[in-house]
C-alpha cells in the first residue's frame, strides 16, 4: 500500500556519478516508496541507466548517499545489492547464452548437489506461475529476444527482491507478452514489491506507473504523480523542447510513388522461421514490415543481406534488380548495395572498443574490399567527421569509443556505417529500439530522407506507431510469411494487429 508517510524503501540523496571528469548524474534526489511503480524517463544519455546501475551495485557513487529502509548502504556488486533486496533486469540481457533457461534462473543460487531434472521441474513450475511460455531446458542462445527478457524477469522475481529495476523491459516484447508483463508487474506490486521502470515508450510509463521521475542531462527535472502528466508534458520535460509533432504522434497521410522493383523475394524458405515467403521492395518508398516476435521478419531480411543462408534445397529465389542473387556471406551483398542495420547493435552493430570514426570507416572498407591497399587514417578521420555532422552524433570527438556513447548515438554510428556504403537497399531492423525520443525523431527524419532520395528502404519494427508513421507500404508477417499488405492510408492498428495474429 502506498502512503505519503511510509519511509521510502530506497532513497538517493544528492547522488553524483562522474565518468572521466564528466558527471553522468549530478546531485540527483530520488525516493521509491514501498509497493510503488516508479517510472524513470529521459533521453538517452540523461542518466537513467547510471542511476539504476548505482542502485543495483553495478557502479558506485562518486558522492552522495543511498539509503535502503532508512539505512545508509553502499552495494559494491550486484550480489551485494541482491542481498539487500535490489534486483535489476538489464536492457541488454545478462544471461549466460550457453546455459539452459533453468540453469540461468538458479545461477548463483545452486545447492551443493544439484539434480538437473529437479531444477528443470522447479523452473517449469516457476515459469508457469508467471504464465511465461519458456522451455526451461532450452539453451538461452537459441531463444528470441522476448523470451530472454522473460527469463531475466523471472530470475529477478525468483530472488524475492523487494525492489526490482526494469531497464527497457518491453522493448522486445509483443503486445500480448507486454500485457502479461504488465499483469506481472501489477501482481508484484500487490505483493509489496517496489518497481523502478525505465521505458522509452511513454504510454507504458503513463499506463503502469504511480509516479514518474524525469531526468535530463544527468539532473532530475521533476518527480510527480502520474496523473499530473500527459504525453506532451513528459516529452517537453525530457527534451526541453516540444517534439510531440515530429515522431510517433503523427500518422502518415501521403504515399510516395513507388519506383522500380529493387528486391523481389520469391518463395523463400529458411528452416522453420521463413516459410515460402514472397515480397517486393520498391525504390523511393519506405516498406514497413510488421509482425510479432518469431514471425520471421528479421530472418527473411538477414537471408537477403547474406547474414544467414536460406534452405539448401528448394530455398526459393531472391532477385535484386531482377537479377537472381544468393549471398553466402554479407560482403558481396554490401558490394551489390544491400545494407542491413541490425536490431542488436551491441552484438552485431559495431566494435565496442573502436572509435566512432573507426567504426564508420570499417563500413566503407567492407564496401571497397580489395580496392584499398592501405588504410588511410586521414580518410577515416574525414569520413568520421562527415557522418558525425550529418547524423548529429553527440560525442566529444570522433575518437570516442562507441561503447561510451548513449544508445541513440550508438545507433547513429551503426546507421552511418551502413550509409557510408551508399547502398541502394537499406534494411533497418528495429531502428529505434532502446533509443531516446530526440534521437528517434532524427532517425525517422533520416529514413524519410533516404526514401525521398530514391533509395529502397525497409523498416522492420515491432512498434506499430513507428511502422504507421514511416511506411508507404506496410507488410504484415505471420508464421514465416507475408500475409497482408496495406498502403499507408488504409492501414489501422486494428487491421495490422488482426493480420499479425489471426
Amino acid at each position, binding site marked *: 500500500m502506498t502512503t505519503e508517510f511510509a519511509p521510502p524503501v530506497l532513497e538517493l540523496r544528492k547522488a553524483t556519478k562522474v565518468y572521466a571528469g564528466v558527471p553522468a548524474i549530478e546531485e540527483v534526489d530520488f525516493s521509491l516508496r514501498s509497493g510503488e511503480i516508479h517510472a524513470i524517463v529521459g533521453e538517452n544519455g540523461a542518466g537513467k541507466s547510471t542511476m539504476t546501475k548505482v542502485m543495483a551495485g553495478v557502479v558506485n557513487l562518486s558522492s552522495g548517499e543511498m539509503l535502503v529502509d532508512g539505512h545508509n548502504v553502499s552495494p559494491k556488486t550486484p550480489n551485494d545489492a541482491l542481498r539487500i533486496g535490489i534486483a535489476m533486469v538489464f536492457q541488454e540481457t545478462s544471461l549466460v547464452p550457453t546455459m539452459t533457461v533453468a540453469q540461468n534462473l538458479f545461477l548463483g543460487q545452486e545447492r551443493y548437489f544439484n539434480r538437473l531434472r529437479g531444477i528443470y521441474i522447479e523452473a517449469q513450475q516457476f515459469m508457469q506461475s508467471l504464465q511465461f511460455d519458456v522451455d526451461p531446458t532450452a539453451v538461452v542462445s537459441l531463444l528470441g529476444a522476448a523470451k530472454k527478457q522473460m527469463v531475466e524477469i523471472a530470475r529477478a522475481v525468483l530472488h524475492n527482491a523487494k525492489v526490482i529495476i526494469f531497464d527497457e523491459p518491453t522493448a522486445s516484447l509483443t503486445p500480448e507478452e507486454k500485457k502479461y508483463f504488465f499483469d506481472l508487474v501489477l501482481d508484484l506490486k500487490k505483493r509489496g514489491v517496489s518497481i523502478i521502470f525505465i521505458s522509452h515508450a511513454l504510454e507504458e510509463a503513463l499506463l503502469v506507473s504511480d509516479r514518474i521521475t524525469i531526468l535530463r542531462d544527468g539532473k532530475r527535472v521533476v518527480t510527480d504523480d502520474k496523473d499530473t502528466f500527459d504525453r506532451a508534458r513528459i516529452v517537453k520535460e525530457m527534451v526541453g523542447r516540444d517534439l510531440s509533432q515530429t515522431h510517433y504522434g503523427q500518422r502518415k497521410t501521403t504515399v510516395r510513388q513507388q519506383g522500380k522493383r529493387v528486391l523481389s523475394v*520469391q518463395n523463400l524458405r529458411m528452416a522453420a522461421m521463413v516459410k515460402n515467403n514472397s515480397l517486393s521492395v*520498391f525504390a523511393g518508398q519506405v516498406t514497413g514490415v510488421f509482425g510479432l516476435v518469431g514471425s520471421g521478419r528479421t530472418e527473411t531480411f538477414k537471408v537477403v543481406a547474406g547474414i544467414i543462408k536460406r534452405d539448401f534445397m*528448394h530455398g526459393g529465389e531472391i532477385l535484386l534488380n531482377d537479377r537472381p542473387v544468393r549471398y553466402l556471406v554479407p560482403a558481396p551483398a554490401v558490394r551489390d548495395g544491400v545494407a542491413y542495420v541490425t536490431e542488436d547493435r551491441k552484438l552485431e552493430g559495431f566494435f565496442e572498443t573502436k572509435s566512432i570514426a573507426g567504426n564508420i570507416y570499417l563500413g566503407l572498407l567492407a564496401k571497397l574490399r580489395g580496392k584499398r591497399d592501405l588504410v588511410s587514417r586521414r580518410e577515416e578521420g574525414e569520413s568520421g567527421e562527415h557522418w558525425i555532422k550529418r547524423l548529429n552524433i553527440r560525442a566529444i570527438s570522433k575518437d570516442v569509443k562507441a561503447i561510451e556513447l548513449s544508445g541513440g548515438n550508438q545507433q547513429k554510428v551503426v546507421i552511418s556505417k551502413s550509409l557510408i556504403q551508399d547502398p541502394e537497399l537499406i534494411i533497418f531492423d528495429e531502428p529505434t529500439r532502446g533509443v531516446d525520443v530526440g534521437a528517434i525523431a532524427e532517425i525517422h527524419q533520416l529514413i524519410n530522407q533516404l526514401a525521398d532520395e530514391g533509395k529502397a528502404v525497409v523498416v522492420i519494427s515491432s512498434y506499430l506507431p513507428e511502422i504507421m508513421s514511416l511506411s508507404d507500404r506496410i*507488410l504484415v508477417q505471420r508464421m514465416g510469411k507475408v500475409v497482408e499488405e496495406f*498502403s499507408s492510408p*488504409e492501414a489501422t492498428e486494428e487491421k495490422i494487429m488482426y493480420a499479425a495474429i489471426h
Partner: protein
Amino acid sequence: MIDSILKLTDRLLGRGDAAITVPVFDGPLKANNVIEAAEVLDSLEAAQDLATDGQHLFVANGTCVLRYKGNVSEKIHDFEAPVTAIACLPDGGIAVSLAGREVLVVGGDYDGRRWGGSGDIQFYAVNAITASTDGLLLVTDGSVGRSTAHWKTDLMSLGASGRVFELNPANGNIRSVASGLSYAYGVCYADGAAWVSESWRHRLVAFRNDHSPKAVISGLPGYPSRLSPAAGGGYWLTCFVLRTQLVEFVLREHSFRKRMLKEVEPQYWIAPALNSGNTFLEPMQGAHLKMMGVVKPWAPPRSYGLIIRLNNNGEILYSLHSRFDGKNHGVVAAVECQGDLYALAQGSQRILKLPLAEAERSARA
C-alpha cells in the same frame, strides 16, 4: 559438360532455372476486384480483340468487326474467316488479321492491301496488330505452325517460334523485326522502339533498330498479352493467364509434360486456362478449391483477370484484377477510349467498361 552438371545440380537443389518460384502480387500489383466489379458492355461469344480510333470502340467478333457508339453496336465488316486481331489506322481504315494467317487493310488510303496467305510470307498465328502515327503496322505472329487457338499447346510444348513483323501499307513491304520469341502476343510502338510481349518468358522486350533487344519489364506474375497506349502517357498491358507454381513445376517435368500432351485431352491439362470452375474434371477439382462454399485463398488458380498500367519507362503504376473466385478472367485486350477503359475478358466472353478515374482510384486504394 560443366553446363550439364550445373543444370543437374540446380535441378537437384531446386535453384537457378529449376527454382519453382512465382513473383508475388504485391505493391502496385496488389490484388483488387476492379475488373470483377466492372460494367458489362456486351457479351460476345467469339470476341477476339479490341481497338479504338479515339472516338469509338471496335471489336473483332468471329468473322465480323463491330463498332460501338455508346452501348449500341453495329456490324461494319464481315469477312470470310475469323478475325484474330484488329487495329485502327490513322487514315481511318482498319487492319485485321484473318484466321491468324493473313493481314488485310480495309478502308483508308490503302484499302485492300494484303499480306500472308499465298504471298511470300506465311503467317500462322497473328494475334496483335498496332499502327504507328506514320502509318506503319507492327504485327505479332505468336508461333510458327500453331494457330492462335492453340496457344496452350505452344506453352506446354515450350514453343519459341514467335515473330514480329513491320508492314508498310504504302508499298506493301514487310520487314522482320524479331524471331525466336517464346510466344509473341502483343506489340506497341514506344519511344522509337517496338515493345513486344514475350508471353512464355513473362516479359516485355524492346526492339530498336540496330540495338540488341532489351527487357523493359521482366518477372511478371502472369503471361503478358496485348499492349495499348494510355491517354495520360504510358501503356495498358493485359495478362491473359496467371503463372502458378503447379504449372511452372509441370513445365520443368519434361517426361510428365510430354506424356500429358500426348495422352490427355487439352481441356484437362495441368495448364493455365482462360476460365475455370466449369467442370469437376478439371485438374484442380471443385472440392479442392472450396471449403464450406468458400474458395480457399491458397488454392492455385487456373484462370485470372489482370490488367497492368505501365508508365513510359515500363514501370508498373497500378493494376486491375478479377481474382480467381471471379468470372471476368482471361483478359486479352484493353483499350482506352473517351475516358473509359474497355477490356475483353475472353474467359467470361464479356466486353467490360471501366470508368478510368474510378478504376484508378479503386486500384490505388
